[in-house]
């Protein structure tokens, strides 16, 4: 097993220039910066319209130092397939292809192309950075917006449906590697990327991305909010290697501790959950407890 990366052993080379167009406190800026460090120089990126399009800047200036193809919203994984095919005919086997798409671009409009590419076993890494809504267009609900969250198009009642479990959908494609990460735990993300880079076929990463304007918290609290999601057992860090599920990093430690922070604290840290009633919070708490009871049992 590889040694865990620390903030001191993280590579110093940067692939994202300082001064991007991301919002202050953007969780994606952290995940992208660290993610590209793990991917390294020999990478070609594919990006559909999303917050990342904004982060990367306006023509003719770009904040990313890696080659990047901007593509249409629904076509991310198909475009990655096109680059892979070209690298194959060119005989270039040392270049990593990495797609970075938002949750709307993944769980909604891009799901078909992603499923197709995964089924074909296209050898690339797909990152879904999940800020739980269409943030770039002004915070509308997406397939991964959690139940109870107020968005621009669920303005009074909040979203009434459950969050779509995209990593589970991707795991059902029998991928060599599926990971759930968080921008609040960037070193876990780094190590997971490094771990899967030589694995065959499509690798899927789901990254929880705290979003100050979309979630409604002060920009300085992004890491705190991201960590609360994990510490409450609401969002879990894990990996599925060839079908084997395993909690990682902070989530793994929670199993040892047998103690979760009440989910109320997570909900109360963001204004998007302001309409949640005590009953609704209690219902979510029960779901979390049931999920974790299974984790504890597995650990015994």
């Amino acid at each position, binding site marked *: 097993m590889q040694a865990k990366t620390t903030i001191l052993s993280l590579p110093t080379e940067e692939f994202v220039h300082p001064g991007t167009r991301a919002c202050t406190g953007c969780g994606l800026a952290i995940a992208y910066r660290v993610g590209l460090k793990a991917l390294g120089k020999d990478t070609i990126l594919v990006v559909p319209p999303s917050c990342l399009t904004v982060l990367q800047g306006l023509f003719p200036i770009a904040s990313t130092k890696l080659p990047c193809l901007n593509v249409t919203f629904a076509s991310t994984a198909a475009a990655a*397939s*096109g680059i892979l095919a070209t690298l194959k005919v060119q005989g270039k086997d040392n270049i990593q292809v990495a797609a970075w798409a938002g949750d709307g671009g993944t769980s909604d409009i891009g799901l078909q192309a992603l499923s197709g590419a995964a089924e074909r076993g296209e050898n690339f890494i797909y990152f879904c950075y999940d800020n739980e809504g269409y943030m770039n267009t002004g915070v509308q609900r997406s397939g991964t917006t959690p139940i109870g969250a107020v968005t621009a198009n669920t303005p009074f009642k909040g979203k009434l449906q459950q969050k779509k479990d995209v990593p589970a959908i991707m795991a059902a494609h029998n991928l060599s590697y599926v990971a759930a990460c968080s921008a609040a735990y960037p070193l876990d993300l780094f190590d997971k990327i490094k771990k899967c880079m030589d694995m065959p076929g499509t690798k899927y990463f789901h990254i929880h991305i705290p979003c100050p304007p979309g979630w409604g918290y002060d920009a300085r609290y992004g890491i705190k909010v991201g960590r609360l999601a994990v510490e409450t057992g609401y969002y879990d860090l894990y990996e599925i290697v060839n079908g084997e599920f395993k909690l990682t990093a902070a989530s793994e430690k929670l199993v040892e501790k047998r103690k979760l922070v009440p989910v109320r604290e997570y909900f109360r840290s963001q204004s998007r959950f302001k309409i949640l009633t005590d009953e609704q919070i209690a219902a979510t708490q029960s779901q979390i407890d049931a999920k974790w009871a299974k984790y504890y049992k597995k650990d015994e």
Partner: protein
Amino acid sequence: MHIIENGNVAAALGVKLCHANVIAAYPITPQTPLTEKLSEYVEAGEMKAEYIPVESEHSALAVCIAASSAGARSFTATSANGLLYMHEQVQWAAGARLPLVMCVVNRAVGAPWNVWNDQQDSISQRDTGWIQMYCSDHQQIIDSVIKAYWLAEKVSIPIMVCYDGYILSHTYMPFDVPDQEKVDKFLPPFRPDYALNPETPANLNTVTLPDVRMDVKGELAHGYMEIRYLLHEEMRTSLAVAAEGEKRFADIFGRGGDPYLEPYLCDDAQYVAVGLGSMTYQLRVAVDTLRKEGIKVGVMGVRFYRPFPDEAIAKALKGKKGVIVYEKALSYGYEGALVSDLKSALYEYLAGTGKLPVVQNFIAGIGGRDIKTDDLIQTLRAATQGRVSIQPVWIGLKL
């Protein structure tokens, strides 16, 4: 080498001769035999290419767009609703200036479902910034694919090679398959100005502002409007490049001629029938019949629909008494798209000269309705005797 094969195989052979190395396709009738044949060439090792059996047409063109951006010569083909489903990507490929070639095996679009031939699919993509070529026989299909790669890569504009479903795609005709050596002489390897690679990173198709903007060195880069203007302008100049390509093709392969138009008995004709694709060959039979009656008619196929060869068309039709445009598609609520474009060209070049022909429009073969040669003879004869209608007339309508 002369062989007898169907139109889809003619297209597949053209793609193979051009060494396309990334092919992506999704099945739709009547395109399927073409892409099946390509998968056969790839699996048998006759073509050194990657064949990606994608999950949709939208993804098929996405693969080609990305492959072309990374330096591959890529190919796809589709029909009808498959093309409509691609529409966003069709626009994208042109805006990104990628020299893709796509065969459109023309078929009627839904609703209601109909799998037979008309040309509503490709005509509805007229304003996407793609060059459109139309074929009338199998020789033109294979030759057009080869010419299309040459032209597309010269001008960095994608090209649709359109041919009628079933009438050409599934019928067998003799045609010459050019020698590989000659094709290699005609078509040099694809060397794009830029291809995605980590050594010289670039961020392609980023958000581009309405106005020009300075780069980091202080030099002004194009705004969106400049980029789009250049697409239009270079499409216009690609007409001349196509003529150069046609000459080059004729020099190497010993066949070819007019790059834009395909006239038949037009020189002394007082009336000229105009159309796109295989129907113009059927119209030749009508012309032959009417010539025997002493009516001076000819027929002209339009091989290039976009960029529109307006000047060549106006020159060819100058002083004719009448022009009769037969179409298998229309701009709903007005008339055939080709007749509108043609009238505009004639007006532009001939208004006030006294040489402006009367133009009439027939709509035929929609959704694969059988076009009877007798109907073509009768309508053409009627059109030479006076104006049949100010509105387009639908041939064979049973209402």
